[in-house]
């Protein structure tokens, strides 16, 4: 593990013992004039599952998009193992082991399932067949449909495909944006099980979810975003027990 630090470490940051796998420092991100993130601090340690909760428009997706290089922060830093990676284009960033499953699945509609998976391994010379078999093992439904076009899959299948595709790039850090959105309860359970399995096999996961209950059951730690800032940050179990969280994100009536 390369823990080399950049020569120019910005002043004012306290030295961290073992740098987190991913660290966001004081991140401010804009869409035009809209400030979507107003100074977000967040860290993900090796091997963890971290859940990121928040209302619509809180900036969860923006956080992930910044981490995977799709957006550049106006100020603040993104650090991967202590090295600054903000400003690196996403296609270069995948080499560093970041996989991003974007919001809304976004599979390649006119490619077959197999081609979609191969695209996930684009950064390698040729796709790793063992990895593909492992993914087909995780998602038997995809194996059945390996030559069907991505666009004709159902929502759940597309979600599986999107996750599988990201895994083909052998990421160390998997960013997932609302993987349970629009999925049948059964599939949601399956997906969370698969996520647990992936994590156990050594992939670190940063998970954005509306489905807070399940996300927190899976996660080690959780962050709650509110209008672009981190409002809470605790162990997952603590968040699960927090009355405010229960009211706002688990749908319990507070009274």
């Amino acid at each position, binding site marked *: *593990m*390369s823990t*080399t*630090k*950049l*020569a120019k470490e910005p002043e004012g940051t306290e030295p961290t013992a073992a740098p987190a796998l991913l660290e966001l420092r004081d991140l401010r991100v804009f*869409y*035009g004039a809209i400030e979507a993130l107003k100074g977000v601090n967040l860290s993900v340690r090796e091997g963890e599952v971290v859940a990121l909760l928040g209302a619509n428009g809180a900036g969860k997706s923006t956080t992930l998009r910044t981490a995977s290089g*799709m957006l550049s922060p106006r100020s603040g830093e993104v650090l*991967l*193992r202590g*090295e*600054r*990676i*903000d*400003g*690196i*284009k*996403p296609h*270069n960033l995948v*080499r*560093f*082991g970041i996989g991003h499953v974007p919001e809304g699945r976004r599979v390649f509609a006119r490619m077959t399932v197999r081609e979609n998976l191969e695209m996930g391994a684009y*950064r*390698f*010379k040729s796709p*790793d067949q063992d990895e593909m078999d492992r993914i087909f093992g995780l998602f038997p439904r995809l194996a059945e449909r390996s030559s069907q076009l991505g666009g004709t899959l159902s929502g759940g299948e597309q979600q599986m495909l999107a996750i599988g595709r990201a895994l083909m790039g*052998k990421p*160390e850090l998997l960013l997932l944006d609302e993987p349970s959105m629009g999925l049948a309860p059964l599939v949601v359970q399956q997906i969370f099980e698969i996520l647990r399995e992936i994590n156990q096999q050594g992939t670190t996961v940063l998970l954005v979810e509306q489905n807070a209950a399940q996300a927190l059951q899976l996660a080690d730690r959780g962050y709650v975003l509110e209008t672009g800032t981190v409002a809470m940050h605790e162990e997952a179990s603590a968040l699960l027990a927090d009355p405010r969280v229960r009211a706002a994100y688990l749908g319990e009536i507070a009274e």
Partner: protein
Amino acid sequence: MSSGITKTASGGPASTARLRGVAWYQHPRWSRLTAMVAIAVVLTMVTGEQGTDRDIFFALREDFTGPLPWIWLGLCLLVWTVREFWSEPIRKVRRASVAKSDPPVAWVRGQWRGDRRIRQLVLAALVAVAAFAPMGLERYWHQVLVDQIAIYVLLAIGLNVVIGWAGMLDLGFVAFFAIGAYSAAFWTGALPVDPPFELNNFLVIPVAVLTCLIAGLILGAPTLRLRGDYLAIVTLGFHEIVYITAKNVEDFTGGARGVSGVEHFSIDMGFSYEWKLDPLPYYWLLLGFIVLLVFLFMRLEHSRVGRAWTAIREDQVAAAATGVNTVRFKLMAFAIGASTSGIAGVAYASKVGYFNPENFPLLASVLVLAYVIFGGMGSIPGVLFGAAFLVWLPEVLRDYVDPRDRYMYLGALLVIMMIYRPQGVWPSKRRQRELKMATEGTVDGDATAAPAGGKVS
């Protein structure tokens, strides 16, 4: 870099720095310098000698052995130096002046928005200026105003309905112009075939509008289901078919030799007046048409029809599900555009008296499209300006550059303009919003306005 398992953020600091683009040689300044050199080379060719086919290397040799490339290189480097090293003071000065001039602009805008009567008054004044200002010009400009500017402005107003409002990419718009002109010729008895009865040119207008409407429906009905780009090619095909038919069916259209002797406009009701060779009366007539059409169309824009068009443009499926009869509204736009074009055709034929199929080349359709988008799709003032300006420009350029090169400058202007102001000179509010949303990536936009490719830069 592409080893199986990436346990290391490969490469270390140097490589991340390079990828982040912060190394000194990655400063955009250097690519701008290359661009400047390239621009100097292009400018040398643009302003250099006229080539000759007798010696294909003649122009290149002359251009690059003379002083021209050095002059341009010097100028470009100067611009680059100023931009890279002195831009801050300049920007400061500009910002100061902008800040100073803001309140009156805001005041004017407030007045404009606030009071309807002021708006009407200003518009009336503008029309008056448009009507009387040309009297001070040479007759040459009168001719240009009538035969080219006014006609193309009419065409642009019509195409704006089709593309700016309904969002349909129509590359065959000038076909309707041709149909209008041939209608005028037919009903005034200038074609080889005789009409059942001859009509006064003013009466030809409704007939031509009807003809264009029918032609528009015939073309539109089977094809409007097609998506944007498919529609473009079909309309282009329609144009070719009309154009070639006009050329080939000699017994009816006179073929390539064209039509001559179309009568001029005339009024014969109690008093009589005939528009003759003098261009000014034609100008007033056409100005009348333009003002009338603009007035009518402006009402459409913010009505139910205009909204339905916007809806179709943005999301056809959703529009249909909301109860908008998409085919009907598209046909309506198509027909309105076609009729406007037809009116222009009648006016044109009556003014020049002689025309042939070469007056309606595909290029004309493309040009009108460029005028509309240059001015600002969907915005009437923009379209008026775009057409007038771009038709006028080659005419003045004639006096300053080799006339053979005029369209080269026009092309360059279009490219530069679109890069720096993609929304057009005077965009419509709705279109501007769409553009803004597309830029920020919140809206997918529609068949014709969707962002093209790469959302990531």
